[in-house]
């Protein structure tokens, strides 16, 4: 349903003084309150009536949520309140994780990316999240705080279903840590939307590759796919093919077909399931070819 009115349903804006206070409030008002960073997903869903809340709990400015720092041993830490534009223009991110910059820059528009956050993209748990796949194949780990303390969880174990995650009542994702990228990594993000820029993805393909002595082929590849399954997913069989067989145009084509066979997309306003499957094959092949051209150079 389209709500033409600019207003949001009545709710309270809560600004806690600490993360502990935020967690306690969220636990006490479970189902009625949500952490609020950029609000770019929540506002739309609140206006449409899909999301009903009594409280928005602003976590911007709470300890650690604005951190954006790189350490050659620990990797990159992105706090929950760090916007996509802040990530995309950070010199260390540009240098070490150019594929994340590329993925972030495909999201909506410049002004939306001034509000939208990477952690919000992840916690929204949409299969279409453009930055999720790249964070997944970079082996991202989420740092979570709850009423009973802190825990970490690998991003690839975070999603349960569209919009559903393993987060428990009162838990807040405070940041994500991306380990240092593998030596010699080349990564790309290919996005197919209804227009060239700004739309949600019909299909999104994140690929990275790097030289690896452990693989018979001499290279390891990681492939994550968006908008083609209930949750963001990795194409494990395609990755195995690229690890085992000598990398040629034929191996790449085989891996792209394996990626296509692994997905379970739906028909929706943006594209049919059949179209999505074929586009997974084509974009995976394109992405792998592009990455391989740079790797083998």
């Amino acid at each position, binding site marked *: 349903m389209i709500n033409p009115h*600019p*207003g*949001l349903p009545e709710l309270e804006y809560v600004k806690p003084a600490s993360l502990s206070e935020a967690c306690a409030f969220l636990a006490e008002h479970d189902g009625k309150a949500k952490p609020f960073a950029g609000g770019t997903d929540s506002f739309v869903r609140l206006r449409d009536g899909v999301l009903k809340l009594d409280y928005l709990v602003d976590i911007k400015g709470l300890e650690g949520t604005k951190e954006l720092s790189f350490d050659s041993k620990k990797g990159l830490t992105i706090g929950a309140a760090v916007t996509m534009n802040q990530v995309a223009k950070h010199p260390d991110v540009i240098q070490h994780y150019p594929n994340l910059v590329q993925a972030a820059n495909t999201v*909506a528009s410049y002004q*939306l990316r001034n509000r939208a956050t990477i952690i919000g993209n992840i916690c929204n748990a949409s299969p279409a999240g453009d930055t999720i796949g790249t964070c997944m194949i970079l082996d991202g780990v989420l740092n979570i705080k709850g009423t009973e303390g802190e825990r970490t969880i690998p991003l690839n174990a975070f999603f349960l279903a569209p919009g559903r995650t393993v987060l428990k009542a009162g838990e807040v994702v405070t940041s994500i840590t991306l380990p240092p990228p593998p030596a010699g990594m080349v990564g790309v993000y290919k996005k197919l939307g209804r227009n060239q820029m700004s739309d949600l993805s019909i299909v999104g393909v994140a690929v990275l590759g790097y030289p690896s002595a452990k693989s018979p082929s001499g290279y390891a590849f990681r492939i994550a796919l968006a908008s083609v399954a209930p949750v963001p997913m990795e194409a494990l069989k395609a990755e195995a093919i690229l690890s085992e067989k000598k990398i040629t145009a034929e191996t790449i084509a085989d891996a792209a077909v394996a990626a296509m066979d692994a997905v379970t997309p739906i028909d929706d306003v943006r594209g049919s399931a059949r179209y999505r499957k074929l586009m997974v094959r084509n974009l995976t092949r394109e992405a792998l070819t592009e990455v391989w051209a740079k790797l083998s150079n």
Partner: protein
Amino acid sequence: MTYSRITLTVNDLVETVDVPQHMTLLQMLREKLSLTGTKNGCSAGECGACTVLMNDEPVNSCMVLAAECDGATIVTVEGLAKLGKLSKLQETIIKTGGVQCGFCTPGMLISATALLKRNANPTETEIREALVGNLCRCTGYYRIVEAVKESAAH
């Protein structure tokens, strides 16, 4: 209804406003401060008609709560002209005919002003990328892009 009292700077003026906590920045600008230059289009962060500068960066004001803006500095289209004199970009967009119905113009001007601040000499692709979140319902993009190009050249 719960209210917040916020103090912020809007177009160089310090304002103290009582706002319902679910009121957006867009609503506050239009309904509390009578700054109706900023438009409501899609209410979903897609059309960019409501774009304003918040602490020097463009944001969709329909996607920001007024209550969050305590201490913020906001510039709307009304703040682009100084002492009654239009900005260079405003003059150029009139000259190139980049204004048709005018509904998208305030947001276009804000996004383009922000672009020229971070990149004084943008390419056509960079201009189009920066304006991707501003939809023109007359589809008069060509002359809008021309205006930004010409303004940058000066």
